[in-house]
């Protein structure tokens, strides 16, 4: 059991708080529902504090509860890895809960109880130290989030989304069941301790890897198992999408790391390559999908796919180096991946909360009807802009740091022994570079169309600033983005114990380097100093401004837009989201989505407008999801005749079964 000094007790209390208020809210409804968010805030901060101390001390605590599987009981363990992800999870939860405080007018028994339960489940996954506890919490996470996705149940789209989501989640869970089954062996050694110590032959390991990649990939949204994200995220309430996209996908990453780095022991040579390729594909496809969207939340969902791909790339690099005994480089790559986990949690939650603010202010998710929101909601705009810069991996914010670290790891490819891997790494680097540029373009589109220009609809015109809770939630996340962007050194050092635990080594200490610069490998190799850069930028920009305003001119006149002398008052003259993406679509979309543009001109003289339409095909969805579904349905229709036979025919079936069994027995005996 657990004594009070044990930090686990703290985490248990946090989880208990969440579950408790979930049950209370479910039981009493009404005003009790309002209890959820304050309690979640408390629980999350408690958990963050505890996890932070655990991470920094790099200590491990375990406990053994008489629950769960009767044979082994419920094993609980918290180490640096789970502590780190605990921090990620609970920061996200904190922000979402803070945003949720603003919902006090639209509390619903369909959302609030499940929100708390969902948060609790995610924390439980991180603490589980046996297969049953892990999968129990894992699937509980899926179920609760399913309930949240279907909260807006009047919407048929939401129902469909929820169905697809829970199906994919269950596929993933079953894959993980297989993985743990294979790891535990027929004897059923389900606790992680015995899994770690177990010896297994390469075939089994291969099975486990395949299963784990499917299981965690479907939760993290790796292509081609990503189908649920673009459906579920728009359907769920925004602070929940923030939680699902920013946090839950990270829990999936945790599962992957836990198995690949901790439970399975030394990875095989090709594993890293597989993870790398998966990551590269998801990164590129994710951002391309995103560019084709004009539903803000779908767009963000696809960017989650992209960022998960980047994280996979980092993990793949780390595995590659690890399998070649280059532990220091493995530590670098792993740090990059984990840093991106952290960053993505921050800016993706921020962006989803921003999207929520927009949705709340205008009731619209479709970019094509937004515009000019920077005027009515300047603060949201600022926060959203910071999120956009961060996710586009632009200096000096945090998104860039993790991608820069990933590039540093890629630059180490010459130290690998095999030529194919040497070449694969820069190839992945190329993909990373390409998708970074595309991501920037995509967020120029997102921010530019939504916040800049002139409003494209009445709803956008009547928009209002978000409530103070939402703003403070976004502000916290934005500040964290800036902080972790400016002082990455501390972050890298904080991951030292984690790397030690998983790889036996860690990156050189950063926080002692002057000017908070980071030098991942060596002074001559590379260095980056976000702090200095931002100081220079601010100083230079400020100085220029002041100089000009004092010594040149400060005169300013407001006037109608010039627009080459032919200004058009109607806002529909502006570029739309689709229009903005059109050149990019022409270049990348023609193959990827077999995009067909069709213009039908009216005959000369007729006054009907010409129509321009684009047809995109989501090949992955059509091939991997629709087609099998259709087959299954066809089969079930065929089989359905067995419901409508006559008694005689049923008797014939029985008779046949009997005779054939008799014959079988006669033959085998």
């Amino acid at each position, binding site marked *: 059991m657990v004594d009070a000094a044990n930090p686990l007790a703290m985490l248990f209390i946090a989880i208990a708080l969440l579950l408790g208020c979930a049950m209370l809210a479910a039981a009493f409804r009404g005003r009790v529902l309002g209890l959820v968010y304050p309690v979640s805030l408390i629980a999350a901060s408690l958990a963050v504090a505890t996890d932070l101390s655990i991470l920094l001390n790099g200590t491990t605590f375990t406990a053994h509860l008489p629950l769960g599987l009767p044979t082994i009981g419920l094993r609980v363990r918290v180490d640096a890895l789970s502590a780190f992800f605990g921090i990620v999870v609970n920061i996200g939860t904190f922000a979402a809960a803070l945003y949720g405080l603003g919902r006090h007018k639209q509390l619903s028994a369909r959302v609030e109880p499940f929100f708390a339960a969902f948060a609790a489940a995610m924390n439980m996954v991180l603490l589980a130290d046996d297969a049953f506890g892990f999968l129990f919490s894992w699937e509980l996470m899926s179920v609760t989030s399913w309930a949240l996705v279907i909260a807006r149940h009047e919407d048929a789209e939401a129902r469909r989304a929820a169905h697809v989501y829970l199906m994919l989640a269950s596929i993933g869970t079953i894959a993980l069941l297989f993985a743990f089954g294979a790891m535990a062996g027929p004897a059923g050694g389900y606790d992680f301790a015995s899994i770690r110590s177990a010896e297994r032959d390469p075939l089994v390991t291969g099975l486990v890897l395949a299963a784990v990649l499917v299981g965690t990939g479907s939760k993290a949204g790796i292509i081609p198992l990503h189908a649920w994200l673009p459906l579920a995220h728009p359907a769920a309430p925004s602070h929940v999408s923030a939680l699902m996209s920013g946090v839950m996908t990270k829990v999936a990453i945790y599962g992957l790391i836990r198995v690949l780095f901790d439970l399975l022991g030394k990875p095989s040579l090709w594993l890293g390559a597989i993870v790398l390729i998966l990551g590269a594909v998801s990164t590129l496809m994710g951002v391309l999908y995103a560019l084709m969207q004009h539903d803000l939340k779908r767009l963000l969902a696809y960017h989650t796919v992209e960022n998960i791909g980047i994280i996979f790339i980092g993990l793949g690099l780390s595995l590659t180096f690890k399998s070649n005994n280059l532990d220091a480089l493995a530590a670098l790559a792993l740090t990059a991946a984990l840093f991106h986990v952290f960053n993505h949690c921050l800016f993706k939650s921020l962006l989803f909360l921003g999207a929520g603010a927009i949705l709340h202010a205008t009731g619209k998710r479709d970019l094509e009807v937004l515009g000019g929101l920077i005027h009515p909601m300047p603060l949201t705009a600022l926060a959203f802009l910071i999120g956009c810069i961060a996710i586009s991996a632009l200096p000096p914010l945090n998104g860039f740091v993790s991608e820069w670290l990933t590039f540093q790891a890629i630059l180490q490819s010459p130290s690998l022994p095999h030529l194919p891997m040497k070449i694969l790494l820069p190839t992945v680097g190329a993909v990373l570079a390409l998708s970074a540029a595309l991501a920037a373009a995509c967020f120029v589109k997102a921010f530019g169309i939504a916040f800049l220009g002139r409003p494209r609809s009445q709803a956008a015109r009547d928009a209002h600033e978000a409530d103070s809770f939402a703003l403070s939630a976004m502000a916290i996340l934005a500040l964290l983005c800036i902080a972790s962007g400016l002082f990455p050194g501390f972050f890298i050092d904080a991951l030292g114990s984690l790397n030690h635990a998983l790889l036996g080594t860690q990156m050189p200490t950063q926080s002692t380097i002057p000017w908070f610069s980071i030098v991942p490998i060596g002074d001559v190799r590379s260095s980056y100093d976000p702090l200095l850069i931002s100081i220079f930028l601010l100083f230079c920009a400020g100085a220029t401004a002041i100089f000009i305003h004092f010594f040149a001119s400060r005169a300013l006149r407001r006037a109608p837009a010039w627009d080459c002398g032919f200004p058009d008052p109607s806002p529909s003259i502006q570029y739309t989201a689709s229009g903005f993406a059109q050149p990019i679509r022409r270049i990348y979309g023609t193959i990827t989505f077999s995009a067909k543009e069709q213009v039908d001109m009216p005959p000369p003289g007729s006054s009907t407008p010409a129509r321009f339409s684009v047809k995109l095909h989501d090949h992955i969805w059509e091939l991997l999801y629709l087609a099998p579904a259709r087959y299954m349905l066809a089969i079930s229709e065929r089989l359905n005749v067995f419901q*409508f*036979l*006559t008694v*005689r025919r049923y*008797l014939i079936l029985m008779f046949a079964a009997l*005779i054939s069994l*008799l014959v079988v027995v*006669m033959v085998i005996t």
Partner: protein
Amino acid sequence: MNEAYDVSHFLAGLMLVVSFALIYQDRLLAVLRTFAIQAIVLALAVAWQALVQDRPNLFITAGLALGLKGIVIPLALHRMIFRLGIHRDVEQVVGVGLTMLFGLALTALSLMLVLKATASAPAVAREVLAIALAIILLGFLMMITRRNAVTQIIGFMSIENGLILGATGARGMPLVVEISVAFSVLIALFVFAVFVFRIRERFDTVDVEVLERVRGDRT
């Protein structure tokens, strides 16, 4: 002992022949009569077993077989058939010849199976058991090849006959069994009565087709 074997052998064989006759018959009334004959033979067989194994309680079973299956049920069905005016028609799904062939195959199968399995058992038991299995399978066959409710019922009851034959053939099977058999027969009768009458009061025919109009879950 020897004539014991002979007689039981003879009666059992007779039952088998009769159930072949059952399959062969294509007139409802004839089927009914044949069934009655089978029941009577069964009664004899059971009585003989009672004699040989000197287990008087078997006489109860014999009596039940004779009384119920030999007399009461046939009469009841007989009356019903006439009331429904369907005493002429009979319909078979498969032609008689084919059915007979099937029957022969099944008999062969059951003989092979049982004789192979019961190498160690006493001769009587082996014989009786093999034939009992054959009768059961033939009854099954009859249920499959007839569409008429009455014939299906009769097929079912000839299965029961086979069971009773087998049960009594197995030496010293405790009273429980006879009770169960008798009692199953009673329940059978009861349920059939209920059903057949309910069918009549609803549809004025005992063609099973009317029991398969809905077949569930169409709407």
